[in-house]
């Protein structure tokens, strides 16, 4: 068994709201070439296994895993697809290396959301076909209901949710990968166009195109391949009830369980003090607050006040979404978890540029797969 696993190479292409000049294969190829160069590996000779995260309906192709190997250099190699978020893919690479069977594994995630004409309809097809779909629930409407319940149960205010948007989109101005940087005031968010009350349009992340590839390695290879290996200290993932009517609405227990799993492996007991920065789900602004509470960074109902007090700003006690998060960078479908992991790796290497945080040693990454899923994953990384 390999006890320790590190991220030794990262590569990306995009991120832009529209990429009409390239196919998804070209996006992936560009990211892969960069990741392999970063790790100093030859995919044909050195990478032992490849993983893609993707969903058929998003790609418009059944059995999409057919089209995954060529652009990654993975043809006629051990390769498989995980229909999950990028963090599920990362967890899979982590497990494969821990078995002791593989030393170097590549993970790929991509988003070509701009190609999809009917994304809201596709996403609606994720609802239970018998119990939920006949209600014709719009995805954002479901999020609006959840937000309402979260505000009610935790006494969080709409102003506090708006403060998340202001912070993240301002952070994004410093991130060259972010497409949605903006200098907004609270009123711009609060009195912006409504989407599904109490959820507003400006509290909802937009899509962006891009690809992220990561190379992971066992300890003995990592020391050879990387000057600054970023260690995967712990990783956890969990599901809850898939049907809307039989789940918690104010809280997200699956995320709490995923965090416990990751913390146990990483030996973290006091997340707020032991973790230096987090890149967490903000597909909707309230989700960032809900996640902070589920991750044990603060008690129930306390996240909003921390954001308002500036504790989660770039220079705060615990920067949250220094990259700009999904609200600032854009969401990337299945690649979203890898997009956040990329940010964490760059921060821990000290390569984040204008928005580099000082003295960071431990970072946390978290993602959620969007309405209507109850699928959360958490990774703890350190340098």
């Amino acid at each position, binding site marked *: *068994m*390999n006890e320790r696993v590190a991220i030794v190479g990262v590569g990306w292409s995009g991120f832009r709201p529209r990429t009409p000049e390239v196919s998804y294969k070209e996006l992936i190829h560009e990211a892969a070439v960069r990741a392999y160069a970063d790790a100093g590996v030859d995919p044909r000779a050195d990478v032992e296994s490849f993983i893609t995260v993707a*969903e*058929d*309906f*998003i790609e*418009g*192709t*059944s*059995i999409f*895993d*057919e*089209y*995954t*190997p*060529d652009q990654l250099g*993975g*043809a*006629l*190699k*051990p*390769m*498989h*697809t*995980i*229909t*999950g978020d990028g963090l599920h893919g990362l*967890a*899979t690479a982590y*497990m*494969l290396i*821990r*078995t*002791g*069977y593989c030393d170097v594994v590549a993970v790929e995630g991509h988003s070509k959301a701009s190609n999809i004409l009917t994304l809201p309809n*596709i*996403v609606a*097809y*994720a609802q*239970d*076909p018998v119990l939920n779909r006949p209600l014709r629930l719009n995805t954002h409407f479901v999020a609006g209901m959840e937000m309402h319940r979260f505000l009610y149960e935790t006494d969080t205010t709409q102003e506090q949710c708006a403060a998340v948007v202001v912070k993240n989109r301002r952070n994004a101005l410093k991130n060259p990968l972010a497409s949605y940087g903006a200098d907004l005031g609270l009123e711009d968010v609060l009195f912006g166009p409504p989407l599904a009350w109490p959820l507003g349009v400006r509290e909802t992340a937009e899509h962006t195109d891009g690809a992220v590839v990561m190379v992971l390695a066992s300890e003995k290879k990592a020391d050879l391949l990387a000057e600054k290996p970023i260690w995967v200290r712990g990783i*956890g*993932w*969990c*599901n*809850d*009830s*898939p*049907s809307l009517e039989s789940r918690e609405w104010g809280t997200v*227990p*699956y995320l709490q*369980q*995923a965090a416990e*799993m990751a913390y146990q*492996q990483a030996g973290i007991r006091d997340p707020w003090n032991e973790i230096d920065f987090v890149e967490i789900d903000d597909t909707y602004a309230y989700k960032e607050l809900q996640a902070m509470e589920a991750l044990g960074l603060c008690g129930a109902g306390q996240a909003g006040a921390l954001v308002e007090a500036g504790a989660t700003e770039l220079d705060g006690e615990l920067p949250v979404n220094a990259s700009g998060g999904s609200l600032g960078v854009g969401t990337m479908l299945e690649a979203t978890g890898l997009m956040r992991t990329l940010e964490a790796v760059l921060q821990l290497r000290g390569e984040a540029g204008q928005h580099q945080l000082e003295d960071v040693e431990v970072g946390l990454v978290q993602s959620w*797969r969007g309405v*209507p*899923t*109850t*699928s959360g994953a958490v990774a703890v990384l350190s340098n």
Partner: protein
Amino acid sequence: MGMRKVAVIGAGMTKFVRRAQETPKELSWEAARMALESCELTMDDIQGVCMGTAPDAFDGVHIKSEYLSDGSGAWRKPYMRSYVGGGTGVFAPIQGWYHVASGLFDVVLVVCEEKMSSYYPHAQAAFLTIFDHTTERPLKPNLLWIFAIEMNRYMTTYGLEKKDIARVAVQHKRNAANHPCALLGEADITVEDVLNSETLAWPVQRFDVSPVSDGAVAIVLAAEHVAKRLTSKPVWIEGVGWHLDTAYWTNRDLAYPRYVEYAARQAYEMAGIKEPRKEIHIAEPYDPFDYKALHHLEGLQLADRGKAIELYLNGTAAPDGNMPVCPSGGLLGVGNPIAAAGLMKIAELFWQLRGEAGKRQVSGSPKTGVAQAWGDLMQVGTVVVMGR
């Protein structure tokens, strides 16, 4: 450094039927519950769940894994779905293997489910969307004629005859007559029946093909220290292999599945098998078409190229032969609910190696077996070697 040993300790399987009344969730749970009961565990003992199921298009549900999660027992548990098309059924146990071998889990449940009948009028239409959207889909390719091309290539390359290849269908369907879950078991079927069946796309005839079906299979995997506590007859996962070839299948040698060979060599190496023809006692190659079983036996290095048919002609492949092939009845006999059919092969090895296969029990108390699945655009091989 030694790897953690992983054992199969329980298995469960629903009937494979043409149109199940149960929802996909219910099928998943039926198999999962049987697997748990077979090793006297409950969901409280399961630390994580691995899911295998083929295209979302069958059910018309986006993120199908999420929909199936509670049915497969994943409520508030770590849960992931792996996916390699038709190879998924033998990949899901590989996924379970790395969950346990990584040291993160001691006991995991692996569930494979497929419900093809929801696709109306016929699941074949779902496969129209697996082809390249620019270069192939405009030709409206149908899976049956894609395989007709491959079968024809295989027959032409090695000078094989339909009447010989039909022996595979006969053997498997006869074997399936003893399987309580089988859809197409037939004890009295003859070569003439196969040769006289309706031609679908020459040289593929109706009885050369496995049927569209609904069903689910589940197994329980455990780390060595747990397996030894729970059962006196653990069946070890001794080797795993998987290889995915290029998407550009039209450039591929259709007479020989190189991707299966690479996967098999990977699995044999892990299992320490140097002479598979001597060391493998029982084989469950993937047999959605009768020629495919031969193709895959060659890829698995259990026969020379073009010679796998001899295993059937000389009786080696029969249940009382030296190396029984598809004693379960395979996909041709039991049915082909895609992912579930692959995991059925793992369950069959589990039962055969424990001596619990009932009327299907092969002679010679086998010690080592191999199961294999195949999928995508004639592209992926997944292989598991199991032993006691």
